[in-house]
């Protein structure tokens, strides 16, 4: 009991340090970008603000203060969970992200699910098979892992939405989620597939698999009941970063499929030097990473019962 509390406390502390570090990096990176945040606040250089207006904003936001002083107040803001207001959208960062996060999370979570489905199917069907089937599976996975998302998305869109009309082009809701999620899922599935395949083929030669066969299990049952679990373990570990990375991938997919989401906002925010928004989104992505890792742990424990029991030395 106590150890759990400690463990959670530790994890939280680690996450806070992590978030602060990420925030710090963003802060200094953004300040290395040439350009004046005051201009960004005034609607960007395209708005051609007057020097007076720029000066006024500079003073108001304290952009003329030393960088470290700015960093200090930035940290203070972070600690108070005050992300401030977006320079360009003139809304609170929390509300901007709040409005976009759901869509991105739905996309990435679906994509992760689909990726698993695809890679497990491929593993079950082709992994460890001799001859053509096994080889095709492995080639397909390698190709899938190497497909650029922007290209894949476009092809899926052209074929399944524009040509065949099976899915909406810009639709929201469940049908509209399919193609974008697939776009993210296919390369990830290829990647997961490669990992699970290796693991599967290892497990296949293990004595416990032979034992299972000796008990009368069919080959399909051995694959599904014994080998798959082993094969899934490393894939689960990878899913942690997978989910985090899908958010980065979401940027591309959101552009191709004209979906709302933090990915799109991030690109605009960086381009417009909208520091509060950039920080906010980075935080969210880092947070997703942290949560994803916790979920990975949970999933890991679910699949690997060895981790469930803390006490139980060999009898």
């Amino acid at each position, binding site marked *: 009991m106590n150890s759990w509390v400690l463990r959670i406390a530790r994890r939280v502390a680690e996450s806070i340090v992590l978030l602060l570090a990420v925030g710090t990096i963003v802060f200094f990176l953004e300040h290395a*970008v*040439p*350009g004046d945040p005051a*201009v*960004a606040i*005034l*609607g*960007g*250089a*395209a*708005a*051609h*603000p*007057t020097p*007076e*207006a720029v000066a006024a904003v500079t003073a108001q936001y304290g952009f003329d203060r030393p960088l470290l002083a700015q960093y200090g107040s930035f940290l203070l803001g972070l600690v108070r969970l005050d992300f401030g207001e977006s320079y*360009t*959208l*003139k809304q609170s960062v929390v509300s*901007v992200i709040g*409005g*976009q996060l759901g869509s991105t999370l739905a996309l990435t979570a679906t994509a992760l699910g689909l990726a698993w489905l695809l890679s497990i199917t491929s593993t079950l069907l082709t992994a460890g098979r001799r001859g053509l089937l096994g080889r095709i599976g492995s080639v397909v996975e390698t190709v899938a892992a190497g497909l650029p998302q922007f290209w894949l998305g*476009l092809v899926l*869109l*052209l074929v399944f*939405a*524009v*040509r065949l*009309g099976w899915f*909406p*082009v*810009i*639709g929201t809701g469940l049908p509209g989620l399919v193609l974008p999620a697939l776009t993210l899922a296919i390369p990830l599935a290829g990647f997961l597939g490669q990992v699970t395949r290796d693991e599967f083929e290892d497990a296949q030669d293990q004595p416990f698999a032979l034992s299972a066969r000796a008990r009368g299990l069919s080959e399909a049952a051995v694959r599904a009941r014994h080998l798959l679990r082993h094969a899934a373990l490393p894939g689960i570990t990878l899913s942690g970063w997978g989910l985090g990375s899908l958010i980065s991938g979401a940027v591309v997919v959101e*552009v*191709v*499929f*004209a979906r*709302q*989401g933090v990915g*799109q*906002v991030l690109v*605009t925010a*960086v*381009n*417009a*030097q909208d520091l509060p928004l950039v920080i906010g989104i980075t935080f969210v992505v880092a947070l997703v990473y942290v949560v994803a890792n916790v979920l990975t742990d949970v999933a890991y424990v679910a699949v690997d019962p060895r981790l469930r029991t803390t006490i139980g030395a060999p009898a």
Partner: protein
Amino acid sequence: SGAASAEVVDRGPVRGGTLVYATDREPTCLDPHNSGDMPQTYVARQYLDSLVSLQADGSVVPWLATSWTISDDGTQYDFTLKEGVEFHDGTPLDAQAVVDNFTQILDPATQSSTDLLYLTGYFESATALSEHVVRIDLSRPYSPLLAALSQAFFGIESPKAMARGLEENCESPVGTGPFEVVAWNHGRDVQLVRNDDYDSAPADAKHQGPAYLDGITWRFLKDNTTRYGALGSGEADVIFNVPPESQQLAEADPAISLQEFVHSGSPFSLDLNTTSPVFDDIRVRKAFVHASNARAAVESAYAGVFPYEGDAVSSGTPHYDETFHEPFPYDPDEANRLLDDAGWTGRDEDGHRTKDGESLTVRLPYNADGAETPPADLTILQNIQAMEKEVGIEVDLEALDSASMNAVWGDPDAYDLIGNYWNSPTPHVMYIKYSKATLDVGNGQNSAFASDDELDRVLIAGTATTDPTEQAALYSEAQRILTSKAWSLPLYPIQTRLGISNRVKDVWIEPSEGEPVLSDAYFVDGGDR
């Protein structure tokens, strides 16, 4: 293709339905007084009314102003406003409201860019003479005023709403127009609903009274394939900017009709920075223009969909003079001769010309964002780059993100060439783009950093007269002067190109800025999907 069936029977206007209008670029502010970029004016037309409405022949008809008088010296305009008009927030439209609009536009805090350039040097004051009469005093006669005011850039907004401050006004400007802004979902769409009390349509509208549509979803679909795909699948009813790549498909599609409007004003051109050490020499500028087979570049990239425009002023602009068409036609030999003349006689190992050890390299920054620089434009730039290489000029294509691109604007040291256009209903656009006054405003719109006293003088004279022959002569002279300077390499006129589903009727494009008008549009099936 597409889900929308080709054959739908049109039984005349029916109410109902929310139209999905998909466009490529998202505005930065919904209040067109602020800044003043094209995406703002297109959407603003749906919720803002202007004082007058421009017609294709250049004349104006009443809109919020039922009538107006102009003083003999052309410096005083009295507008009589339509009575009983209310803004969406219930504020009545009166003379003071119009005055407040001008005040807002002129306030530096508004960062009005487009509007300001139309008024700079002429506008003196606006006063409410009575509840419904407003007077505009000018310092000099200004014949293009009415045409300028007809643009949605000069749409009249609620003073109460404007008083909320710039930021809030940007999110949800309030006008008297046929639709009201309900929500702006950044990155996605602007939601508009019908103004049921609307009774202030311009005199040239297809009908008076409230719009037929229940509302509009003004959707932003940056990617060409997606946008066109959405029209094909019936998920969008009208799309802006049918991708040139899809033009043939669209023409062949019976479920889609196309409408086009060629903008007048200054066409999309590469402006040559006359302060750059390379282009401060007119011979080099001329050589640059001579070296480009701009017609071939445009026609090949735009697959013939966009016409080539060889003039500093688009052919559709009032008082356009054909005489000055293509002053420096494609002629590589002449280009080579001019460059030799200018002293660029050496060659480096890549075959580019040199002078005093310096290579003849010009920087051409462009926005890497595909919505800002569509693929076809990028192809044109590349084509020109290859053509210039033939005469030994190296064109450095610099792809920049939006922020860096913004920083480049107005910085004479940041580029040698830059793509620019200025849509305008009047030949006064020459003054707006190339005058000392614009240069002084310093907001980068004079992207060649060029002005000429003689040109300024002729253009000011042009605004002082209302006599068409006199105007024709003056603007012709202006074009003569302008085209002789080789300040730009003109490419093609901007177009408003709409792809419209057959379910939707009576969409039209007004001529001041090519704004799509949706207040007369209706679904033949009443919007049932």
